[in-house]
């Protein structure tokens, strides 16, 4: 392969590859030796112009130049130089760069320049809000750098301008918006397997700051979900690594946990016994579903209220239980001999002259406790308050003293009315609590006072004590006494109807006999609760010589307040036992008589106790509803689930325990609970509002449901199904007023 060597022209010009311009005739193969100048002009042209300049100066030179020009023939004509490859490349790049700069500058002129430079569309809701503001002002609403704010204003502050309402504590910039001590508490109590921060960082965690934009990335377009967080982000801190919800997520140990229940309801016995007896289907929705409302966990509630849920069976029973009322105060019974000793006793009602008998009710005891004379007397009473049970030696004195005090009480209230009544109660409460009643207790006292008719006591004063019916016919006296004796044997309730029948017939005959000719005026029969006070209220029981209260059925305010007051006193006794020697009142107020009547029937269902989240003692009358503002780590919404046919039946998830004593799960809970209690006792007691362990314990033990299995959720919740991201069930922003955290929320405890 040989090639002819090019003709050797030793004077042929060398190329000039670095020159910006190439001779226009190079393409024809005859480039000039000199080449174009730097400015792209043909060198001949330059030469010629120079020659023209010189022409005027020296004629010789110009002649010479002309001659030179002529000798070259056509090649000596000036050419049109072309750009060399690299120079045209650079020119192109330069022009494009200038164009680019120009476009950018032109864009700066337009008032909508921000819209041009924005890196992406805003999310739907932000776009809606910002759509109204001027384009020029839009950026500065979220970007602190864009206007003359000091460096102390961060973007988070700008976020919180709008968002402080629903994530109030996000300004803390701490993990989960929690306070440092809350975080510490959680980390102390959580087994290290669940949350272990990468080594070296655990100390910094308290101080580690987060900012909104770390997770909520804006400018990703209208459809972008600002709240969408990848699971990896959660696992930045939560180092218990697992693939997904279906693989590796900790098993539920007690979910959904019972929580603190305020209404004692035995699902099992209702389902198996009562509903079957009544031939009704035990439908969860009847009591728990309220489609009109929406709560924290959707339209499913702890209870939809007594009237809807329980009323159909229980309202009649409660009503009938309360028909005869409750002897709030009863005149104590004294023997004839004692009455003669004192002037005061000369006006003692005849019906109460018998023997040392009668019961000093807890209410009476409470009211009498303010009497200074009573301090020595009341402790001598037995717990039941039965006068006949007082020791033989003390009995006369005790009975007398109580009678005297009772007399003063009636007199006081008759004179002072509700004011005196309330004062008495207040003083009594103060005495037993050792402090001024707080505002809640004041409210209770008010409830106990409302509707108390002072004329009852006036009547008592006038009719029973001052205008003494000593010379009433012995029959009626006898009747009174016999009825009273019957009551002492505690059979009044059962036999009241019978008694009424007997007595009523007696009265009717006497009316007919004496007032036959008179216009038809009804003779006043003896007041009877079932007949005269079916809707409730106060009345005087002439027979038993007692002030009676008839409740209004379910949710009677007086009874509720009274039960609550008792509960307060009781729990106070529990707290201050040993230190505060309050012997005036017995330890248990809810002894046979009282329990049988007042708090007992309420407390059968209502579990009074401290409501969590507040320092005061409030009664849990209503089924507890978690406030929507308090966010927990785990969230759940029943509403969408109930639309799915497969889980439409509540019992898919909430299975009743079949046999609690034999069930293994129950045992697991008990053990677990024991551990939990032991640990909490050893360690410092938690902040008051953190965990109410006692109630928690009871609830734990009384859990009637089989805990849920993760597999039940996984059936639907997988990536290709209903989704299984962390944030589908877990909240990040939990910091808010009333945040409480309990291990009950933690399903992965143990092992």
């Amino acid at each position: 392969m040989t090639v002819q060597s090019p003709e050797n022209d030793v004077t042929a010009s060398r190329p000039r590859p670095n020159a910006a311009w190439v001779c226009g005739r190079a393409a024809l193969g005859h480039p000039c030796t000199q080449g174009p100048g730097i400015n792209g002009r043909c060198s001949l042209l330059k030469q010629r112009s120079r020659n023209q300049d010189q022409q005027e100066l020296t004629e010789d030179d110009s002649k010479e130049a002309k001659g030179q020009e002529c000798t070259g023939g056509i090649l000596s004509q000036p050419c049109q130089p072309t750009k060399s490859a690299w120079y045209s490349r650079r020119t192109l790049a330069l022009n494009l760069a200038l164009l680019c700069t120009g476009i950018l500058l032109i864009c700066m002129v337009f008032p909508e320049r921000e819209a041009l430079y924005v890196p992406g569309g805003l999310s739907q809701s932000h776009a809606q809000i910002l759509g109204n503001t001027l384009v020029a002002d839009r950026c500065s609403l979220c970007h602190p750098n864009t206007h003359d704010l000091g460096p102390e204003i961060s973007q988070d502050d700008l976020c919180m301008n709008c968002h402080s309402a629903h994530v109030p504590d996000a300004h803390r910039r701490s993990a989960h918006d929690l306070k440092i001590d809350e975080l510490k508490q959680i980390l102390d109590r959580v087994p290290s397997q669940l949350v272990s921060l990468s080594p070296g960082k655990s100390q910094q965690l308290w101080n580690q700051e987060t900012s909104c934009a770390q997770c909520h990335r804006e400018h990703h377009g209208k459809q972008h979900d600002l709240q969408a967080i990848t699971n990896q982000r959660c696992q930045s801190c939560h180092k218990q690594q697992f693939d997904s919800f279906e693989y590796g997520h900790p098993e539920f140990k007690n979910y959904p946990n019972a929580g603190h229940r305020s209404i004692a309801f035995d699902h099992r016995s209702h389902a198996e016994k009562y509903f079957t007896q009544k031939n009704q289907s035990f439908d969860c929705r009847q009591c728990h579903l309220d489609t009109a409302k929406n709560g924290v966990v959707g339209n499913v509630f702890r209870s939809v209220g007594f009237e809807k849920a329980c009323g159909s069976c229980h309202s009649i029973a409660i009503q009938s239980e309360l028909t005869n009322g409750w002897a709030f105060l009863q005149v104590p019974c004294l023997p004839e001999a004692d009455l003669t000793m004192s002037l005061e006793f000369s006006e003692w009602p005849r019906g109460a002259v018998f023997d040392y008998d009668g019961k000093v009710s807890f209410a009476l005891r409470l009211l009498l406790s303010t009497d200074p004379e009573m301090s020595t007397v009341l402790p001598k009473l037995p717990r039941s308050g039965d006068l006949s049970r007082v020791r033989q030696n003390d009995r006369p004195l005790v009975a007398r003293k109580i009678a005297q005090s009772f007399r003063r009480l009636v007199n006081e209230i008759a004179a002072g009315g509700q004011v005196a009544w309330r004062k008495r109660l207040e003083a009594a409460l103060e005495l037993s609590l050792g402090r001024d009643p707080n505002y809640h207790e004041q409210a209770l006292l008010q409830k106990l006072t409302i509707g108390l008719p002072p004329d009852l006591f006036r009547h008592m004063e006038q009719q029973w004590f001052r205008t003494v019916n000593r010379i009433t016919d012995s029959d009626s006296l006898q009747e009174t006494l016999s009825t009273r004796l019957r009551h002492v044997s505690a059979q009044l309730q059962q036999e009241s109807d019978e008694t009424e029948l007997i007595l009523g017939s007696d009265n009717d005959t006497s009316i007919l006999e004496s007032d036959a000719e008179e216009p038809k005026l009804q003779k006043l029969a003896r007041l009877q609760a079932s007949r005269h006070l079916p809707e409730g209220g106060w009345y005087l029981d002439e027979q038993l010589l007692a002030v009676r209260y008839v409740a209004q059925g379910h949710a009677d305010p007086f009874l509720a307040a009274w039960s609550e007051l008792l509960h307060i006193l009781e729990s106070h006794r529990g707290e201050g036992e040993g230190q505060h020697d309050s012997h005036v009142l017995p330890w248990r107020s809810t002894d046979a008589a009282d329990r049988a009547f007042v708090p007992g029937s309420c407390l059968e269902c209502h579990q009074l106790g401290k409501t969590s989240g507040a320092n005061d003692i409030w009664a849990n009358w209503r089924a507890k509803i978690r406030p929507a503002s308090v966010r927990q780590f785990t969230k759940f919404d029943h509403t969408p689930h109930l639309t799915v046919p497969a889980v439409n039946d509540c019992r898919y998830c909430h299975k009743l325990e079949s046999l609690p004593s034999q069930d293994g799960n129950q045992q697991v809970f008990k053990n677990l609970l024991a551990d939990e209690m032991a640990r909490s006792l050893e360690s410092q007691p938690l902040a008051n509002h953190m965990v109410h362990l006692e109630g928690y314990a009871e609830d734990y033990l009384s859990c009637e449901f089989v805990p849920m299995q993760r597999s039940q959720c996984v059936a639907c919740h997988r990536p290709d199904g209903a989704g299984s991201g962390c944030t589908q069930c877990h909240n990040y922003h939990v910091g808010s007023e009333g945040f409480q955290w309990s291990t009950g929320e933690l399903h992965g405890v143990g092992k």
Partner: protein
Amino acid sequence: MESFGNLEWYADYRKEIGKPAKERISKEPLIAEEGTYATGLWIIRGGFARLSRLQGAGHRTLAYLGKGEIFGLQELVHNQNQSCNAPLPYQESLRAIGYVDALCIPKLTVTEHILPFVRRTELPPQLQEARYQFGQPVIDAPLETSEYSVDTGLLEFLVDRRLMNGQKTMVIDTERCTRCDDCVKACASTHGGTPVFIREGAQYGPWMFAQACMHCEDPVCMIGCPTGAIHRDRESGLVNINEQTCIGCKGCAESCPYDNVRMVTVTDGKGRAKLDHDTRLPILQASKCDMCSSSGGRPFCQAACPHDALVRIDLSDLGQVSQTLGKETQS
């Protein structure tokens, strides 16, 4: 000591370049002929000699021998060791390429005064199959077998073009070269705007032997320089032109057989041609590659090649040739 050929061989070379190879080889002065009695040991003292062998009706070049290389030792050793058998004749022919100075040491001197004092390991290996034996027919060896692992075609090409003269020959692998001219640009920017070589030249296979000064072993351009401007640097061995003393007589440019010297107009720093004061014509001077000796180290053209296509090799060294060009050509 004998001289063969013409010292000014480049003039004949130009005339004969067009003629067929067979004719040219047969015209070359014969130093030693194959098949004739091995009378002595030849040592090349200057120029290049072609080592060839008859192949059919022509001569096949096996190698070229440069300064200091020897011819005939193998045969002499063989004859010495196996003196009982018939002595071997020369196995190859040695021809002068252009001009050769050679020293002949007679056989007797070699066998008596040299061979006894040379270690056996330093001697060339034993001839296995002698091609020429007295009284036996000659068998042609297959063409592809070659002692130096250099393609025979390439060898012939290098010798025909006298390229084996070059010590710093610019070789461009056209299978890698994208013709981006970065080498030329680098050369121009380091040589006052004018490159001192042309990216063109003879091609063999993928190899292009560009028109850049090869800094010949036998630089014929230096012959007849009136001022001695073109000279060989004592230290580096490079052939350079002293710009101060070059008078632009074109002697070197015309005598260079490879057209690697050109006359260019002298320019000032801004690329404008310098004109003669009296005639107002541009001043010409010889220009050729100086291996960037003023900057030292590697030439910029080689450094500027983005594709590693450009190399500078010593073609007089067959080892280097086979290392750089050999394998790819064979494959």
